[in-house]
């Protein structure tokens, strides 16, 4: 068979980037108005936290935050800041918005990356195993546990994991990203952070793990019944090699699609996981920004998140072509 040769899909990439930019603009504008619908503004929220404040103080805050400007000029100011990549200063958090987000981004990416990795690898291993032993006890056990995990709220799972693994067994820390009393540096710090990462990453991955197991199992069962597998088996290829080498490659495409669409969900799920485990990521920053009505910060996070999701989906689409060369990018 002649190998399929193709050039790099520049046209595809260009089209997708233009669509992505338009989507981000729409997201920025729609969210701006959506968030403006929420009652109360940052000045009131800040004055409310302070316990007491007089009307002049609130007026002074509003002027300082630019909230006394007309709605459309606030939107225009936000869009021009976005276009010039200058996200401005958060008066609520007393810090530059870019500094705020960039300082919290690594924590969230680390958590997300670990959770996706656990969900994908776990999904493949357990899914393939379940398919190989279809309707026998390993399959029944895996499917039952997957169903259980699918139906349990992640928030509750997180708290239970803290109780069991951190408080009762003492295997992991209860919360936080590092041992703040130890002042580790270098490799000690890396190990320490990895140790802290275990529970939150597991908690966040569990729901998706359950979905991926079922997805891979179904895909595998379908592929395993195809003729080329029968031929391969007749040629005497081992069952393990058959499953992972021949069948999986074909069965995994739906998984890649779902992971791609789930990336946004992982980002959203980070809010809960980061709250339960006091993980210093963007999810909690977003949550705090919402409750303090720091609209500029919140919008900046939302737009950056959408950028992230768009880019991630683009990468997934490019991955298709690598996993299955018969897929054509248009």
């Amino acid at each position, binding site marked *: 068979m002649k190998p399929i040769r193709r050039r790099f899909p520049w046209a595809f990439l260009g089209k997708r980037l233009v669509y992505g930019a338009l989507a981000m603009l729409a997201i920025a504008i729609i969210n701006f108005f959506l968030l403006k619908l*929420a*009652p*109360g*503004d940052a000045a*009131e*929220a*800040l*004055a*409310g*936290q*302070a*316990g*007491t*404040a*007089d*009307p*002049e*103080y*609130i007026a002074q805050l509003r002027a*300082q935050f630019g909230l006394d400007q007309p709605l459309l000029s606030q939107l225009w100011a936000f869009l021009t800041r976005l276009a010039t990549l200058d996200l401005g*200063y958060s*008066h*609520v*958090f*007393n*810090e530059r918005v870019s500094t*705020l987000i960039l*300082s*919290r981004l690594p*924590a969230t990416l680390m958590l997300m990356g670990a959770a996706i990795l656990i969900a994908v690898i776990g999904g493949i291993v357990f899914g393939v195993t379940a398919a190989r032993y279809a309707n026998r006890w390993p399959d029944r056990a895996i499917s039952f546990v997957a169903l259980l995990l699918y139906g349990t709220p992640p928030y509750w799972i997180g*708290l239970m994991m*803290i*109780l069991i693994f*951190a*408080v*009762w*067994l*003492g295997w992991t*820390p*209860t*919360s*936080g*990203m*590092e*041992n*703040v*009393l*130890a002042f580790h540096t270098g490799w000690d710090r890396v190990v320490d952070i990895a140790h802290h990462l275990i529970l939150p990453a597991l908690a966040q991955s569990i729901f998706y793990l359950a979905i991926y197991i079922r997805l891979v199992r179904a895909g595998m069962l379908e592929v395993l019944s195809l003729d080329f597998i029968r031929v391969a088996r007749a040629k005497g290829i081992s069952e393990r090699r058959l499953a992972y080498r021949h069948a999986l490659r074909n069965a995994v495409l739906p998984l890649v699609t779902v992971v791609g669409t789930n990336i946004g969900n992982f980002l959203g799920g980070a809010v809960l996981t*980061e*709250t*339960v*485990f*006091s993980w*210093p*990521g963007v999810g*909690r*920053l977003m949550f*705090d920004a919402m*409750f*303090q009505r720091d609209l500029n910060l919140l919008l900046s996070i939302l737009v950056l998140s959408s950028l992230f999701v768009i880019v991630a989906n683009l990468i997934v689409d490019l991955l298709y072509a690598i996993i299955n060369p018969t897929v054509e990018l248009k």
Partner: protein
Amino acid sequence: MTKKIQHPPLAMSRRALLMASGAGLAASVLPFGPLSAQPAGTLAMCVTPEPNAMCSAFNTASPVTVVSGKMLEGLLNYDFDVSPIPALATAWEVAEDGLSITFTLRDGVTWHDGEPFTSADVQYTIMEILKVHHPRGRSTLASVTAVETPDPLTAIFRLSQPAPALMYALAGWESPMLPKHVYEGTDVLQNPANNAPVGTGPFVFQTWERGSHIVMAANPNYWGEGEPKLERLVIRIITDPSARAAALDAGELHLAGDGPIPVNQVQRFIDSPDFQVETRGTEMNNSLDMIHTNMRNEHLAKLEVRQALMYAMNRDLMLDVVYYGLAEILDSPIPETLPNFHTSDVPQYDYDPDRANALLDEAGYERDADGMRFGLRLIAPTVGDTYERMGQFLKQNFRDIGIDLELISADIPTFIRSVFGEYDYDLTLYPGSVTADPTIGSQRFWWSEAASPGTPFVNSTGYASEEMDAVLEAAAVEPDPEARRELFVRFQQIAMTDLPILPVARPIYVTIAAANVENFVPGPDGIRAPYGSLAFTG
């Protein structure tokens, strides 16, 4: 919960390790007495939610005051009777006519950057910072017209009228003194020192990892004898109450205050030998749960209806069911924790649903087919789960007298906009602080002139009484303590007669510490204290 806290704390063992590895060296460089005189140990406490800044001169949100108060100090501290004691000022004298206060400042105090602390800093902080930018400062310091500085260690406040409440607002966490040389000539609101304070306090700012923790180190030049006792203080941000309880259990957290864990878990900590639970430390704050009515509502405009609501509340049962015993029932709007002002000589409203029903019958409210007379909405902010339980409880109590209560819970900005901006509510329940002085904390809820649409936590009820206004205005400027007490007694009597606001309870916010921590509630400001004396025992 079988795992016990492991002590000594980590940093202690680190220190021990260092000492062991260099024992000979240590012995030769430290010939002057035992090591215990040196600051030792790293203590982890937590605040919630995460502070937005490190300096409480511009933002007095609760977590900011906790953090700020360790690094920045005020002119005064307070003892458990809420009487002033020396801090940066060693002596003070209020003039006979109440129109000036002379502070003698502590000698030899330096800022964390080495510059001397002088009366010029006091003058600058009061006049240029607190009077202009402090959320409460504009009103508490309203009568201060000038601060004179005859010499570097004397600051004289000149007042346009006597301001007896002022003496209760000078703690470090409330009115911190800031270094003039750092702030003068800068954009003070965006000064980097707001996130990395230069103060005179026992702890020096080191790092702030947003979302995770704040590290402070002992101030080697602190004026307090033998203080601070800790080498480092780490303030962790742990967002979930159950996670805070778990962190305490696991020994990752040594101290947490302001009611840090779910109330139904507090008893477990009280019973545990590994922890100490302290109920004092809120005497400077005195946060009260009160139901503020909206007297613009046609039903609530009637006194009989407000009295009926008061009689309908079974507050003894509420104490157990809603607060798990961690509260005191209020019989007036000034709690017993302020003995200089509190009185019980006011109209009392013990649980009496028959009386409540009779009052509503008299007022002409017939029950309909469902046994209901009319409906009311109760809006509460989503802070903790206490208000949710309270709403359910009140719904039952009020149903007994034929009032159908609809519960609304809203996040804080929504709550503020509805209650204080648009007056779109019937009843509202939220914590409001009396602070250490009713002129600062109470007046705003009852004084007709405090009402101002859009301003949170002031008179929202629409209540306006000439007699009440006159009493509050007189109390604000009465220099004689006895005469002032009489005015506040009168205030409580009018309040409990007119009932624009229904006092419910004073929740007790506990402070929890590991068994080997001492001086964690050294004064009436609880975890807001400077913590120079905070230490590990043994």
